[in-house]
Structures are given as C-alpha cells and as structure tokens.
C-alpha cells in the first residue's frame, strides 16, 4: 500500500484551501485512514491554527528540508483522532527554501506508512504552487462561485494539465443556495460550464466553518454542520464511494422549496 497524495489548490487566495485540507484530513482520519496534512504555504502558515495544533509546533517543513530534523520529528500527531498528523509550514522563511523535488522526496519517504498525504497549497502560480503539486496524484481545485475565482481556477487547471497532473477535480466552496436561486450567484452548472472538469463536491457557505477554525476544531469534527457533511462526502468520494452530489438546500425557505418542487430549478438547471 502506498499513500495517495492529494494537493488542494486554487490560484486565488482565501477561497477555502486550508479549510478544505483540514476538514478532509479530519474526515479521512475519522473514516479510519492514516493521514498526513502538509502545509506548503511557507511564510503564511495557518493550517496548524485551523487544525488547532499551533501550540505543539517544534519543527517545520523547512527544518526537514534543510536537515535540522527528520520528517517524523516534524509530524505533529492530532490526539483527537487515531492517525492524523500535520507537518507545519515555516513561518519565517520564503517559498524558495523548498523545491519541487524536495516535496517529491518527502512524500515518497512517508508514502508507505500512510493512506493519504494532503498538501495545502499557497495561492498563486509561483514556486509554492509548483512545490505543492509536484508530488500530487490527485489535484483538488477549490473555487468560489464567483467570476474572478473561477477565472483563476481555470488558469490553474491549464497549468496542471500542462504538467500532466490530470485536469484535477473541482470543489465549489461557499455556495449560498438562496443567492443561486435568485440568480445572484453563479450556480454549480455555470462553474462547470466554464471549467469542464469533474465536480467532487459542493460546500455551502456555513458560519460553523469560521467558528470551528477559530476554535481549532475543523467543522467535520462536530458532525452535524452543513459544510462538515459536505466535506465528509468529498472524503468518501476520494475513497471511490458513489455519493450523490446534491446542492445544499437546508437554508432554502419552505416557500422556495415549494416553488422549486412546482416549477423546477431556475433556468431549468441546477438541483
């Protein structure tokens, strides 16, 4: 057995890469898999904060690359789950401290002992992004249903294709069903129409995400939230399960749902 390396990237910043990495890590570990999350956003580390492991950092990714410690020593174990680890990014160094071949070497070193290695990519298309996708077997592209974010995702997909890392799979994050209903936000279909790649999950806008990351307990941990359920579904799809893709509807009013049942979704799409 050898771990599958999943890189989470986006092009644009602030769309939910770190949130997705933390939640997918927790979800996969919760389903019994051995998971390592690597924060490749050097200089702007924050996966540790979202995962609630900041206070336990001793060594970081750059320490490993520069030989100050072994990879195992930099791996922080999340005590809440049986097999979840984090390799934090360095706070003080710049991205050039790590190279794509370093990333491939590190991933290969731990592949035999794990099921998933999740890599949280920095924004942009520069070195940090190159580092993050170098060892990837699967690339997840996170986008928001918003024109500029979709545009950046498209650019990233082009670069990933040129690197022969496949077209990647798409996560649409922060969807507000009521805004889509009113035609004020791009729908999942609008996004797929442009990007033309496989959709692996739709995550609704959910306040619990913010609350959870402030507390350092990714929202998947407390089960019930809408976003948490969506991330859990993505984890199961990554494992090859067939989980139907549904547009989150819980926040639609009864009237909207009634209208929808009667007339179908707007423009004859969605749903």
């Amino acid at each position, binding site marked *: 057995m050898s771990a599958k390396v999943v890189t989470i990237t986006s092009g644009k910043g602030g769309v939910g890469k770190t949130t997705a990495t933390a939640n997918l890590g927790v979800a996969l570990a919760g389903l019994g898999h051995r998971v390592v999350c690597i924060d490749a956003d050097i200089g702007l580390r924050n996966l540790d904060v979202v995962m609630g492991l900041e206070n336990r950092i001793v060594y970081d990714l750059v320490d490993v690359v520069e030989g100050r410690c072994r990879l195992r020593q930099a791996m922080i174990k999340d005590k809440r789950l049986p097999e979840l680890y984090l390799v934090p990014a360095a706070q003080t160094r710049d991205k050039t401290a790590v190279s794509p071949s370093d990333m491939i070497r590190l991933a290969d070193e731990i592949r035999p002992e794990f099921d998933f290695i999740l890599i949280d990519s920095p924004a942009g298309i520069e070195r940090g992004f190159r580092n993050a996708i170098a060892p990837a077997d699967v690339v997840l592209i996170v986008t928001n249903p918003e024109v500029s974010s979709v*545009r*950046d995702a*498209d*650019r990233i*997909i*082009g*670069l990933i*294709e040129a690197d022969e890392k496949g077209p990647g799979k798409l996560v649409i994050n922060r969807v507000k069903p009521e805004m889509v209903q009113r035609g004020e936000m791009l729908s999942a279909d609008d996004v797929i129409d442009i990007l*033309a790649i496989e959709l692996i999950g739709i995550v609704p806008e959910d306040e619990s995400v913010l609350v959870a990351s402030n507390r350092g307990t990714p929202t998947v941990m407390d089960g019930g939230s809408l976003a948490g359920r969506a991330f859990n579904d993505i984890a199961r799809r990554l494992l090859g399960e067939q989980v139907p893709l549904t547009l989150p509807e819980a926040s639609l009013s009864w009237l909207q749902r009634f209208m929808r049942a009667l007339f179908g979704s707007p423009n004859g799409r969605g749903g």
Partner: protein
Amino acid sequence: MAGTTDLSNRIAIKGLKDGLVVSLGAESTWAEVTEALMARIDAQAAFFQGGRVAVSVGDRLVRSAKLAALRSALSERGITLWAVIGTNPDTVEAARLLGLETSLQQIDEYRELEPIDTEVIGSEGVLVRQTLRSGGTVRHGGHVVVIGDVNPGAEIVAGGDVVVWGRLRGTVHAGAYGDERAVVCALELAPMQLRIAGHIAVSPPNDNRRRPAPEVASVRNGQIVANPWKTR
C-alpha cells in the same frame, strides 16, 4: 498569406506553440537580415511584444558578439531571444556560451511538407487541439485554428483568420498585421473582446435564451459584424 514572409524574402517568421521562429534568408548578409527583422518587429510591436523568438541561421557562421548584440536589440523591444538554430558548429558553440538553446524538438513538427500539386493553394496556420484556458495564449503570423474552447482570459493573436471549433469566450485578434479581410468564426461566438485589424468589438451581454449557433465575424463598412455561418 500576407504577413508571414517579408517582402524582400530576407526573413520568414513562423509561430510555434511557445514562441516564434525567424528563419534568416541565406542570400542576405547578417546586417541585412537583422535590419529586416528589427523593421518587422518595430512595425508590429504589439504582435511581438513579450514573446520569445528562436532564430534559424542556416549554415552561416555567427560569432557570439553578433548573437549578443541581437539578443540585446530584441530585449530592448521586449522580446526574448530563446534559441539559435544552425548547422555551423562554431555558431552552435557561440549560442551555447550565451546560454541559448540550440535545438528545438518542436521544429521538426513544423518542418514544411513538400508541396504537392493541388488546385487550391491554402495559406499557413497552426492547429491547436486543446481548450485554451485562462492565461493561455496563442500567437501566430498565419491562421489559428482551435479545436476546443477558448475560455475567458485566454488570448489568440493571428496574422490571418481565427477558427474556433468550440466556444470562443476569450480575447481574439485576427488580421493582427492589418488585414481587414480576416475573419473570426466559432461554433459559439461570444468573445470577451474581438479585434480584426484595427477594429475592435465586445460581445453584447450574454443572452441565455438564445441557442448558440456558428457565426462569422468580419469587417463590413468599417465595422465588425457577426453573421450566421453559411458556406455561401
């Protein structure tokens, strides 16, 4: 195709996927060919700007001082000298010393076919068989044909016509050397911005109710107009 070959035949320019190849005519002197090249670049600055160029020098001997001078003349114009292709070993060595590439695998793909006796004489172009995503750019002195979509944020600049067998939603400039007869056609013509020669047009806000149909854009009476695509 007008624009692909210099009138004096001193230089010929071809587009590759990631740059231009300039072939220097064997009959002219180095000074003549470089002068012709600079004149061509200065006349179509927008087309060359930001691009990279490989120079194919044939069997002539070009010393590193001349190559270095060419490189700086190009870089002053915002163009990168990327490779020097030649058969003279001293030229190849000089190029290598300057850190330039000296072979292009891609060139083989573009080696000209022996012309056969055809009744219709076509004109040169490139075929791109993939969707051009945001940030993707194709520049070519002849025609550009894309089998795939051209997404918002992608750009095509062609000396000749542009044909998109797919949805055209990016930016496109046909007849970039000033050819007003150039056309742009697509299965769905909804470009962010469309230019033909010196004319410019933007698509009307998109109308979802309309079923997309193949269209051709061309210049009529000094304006870009789009019409349903018909062969007659």
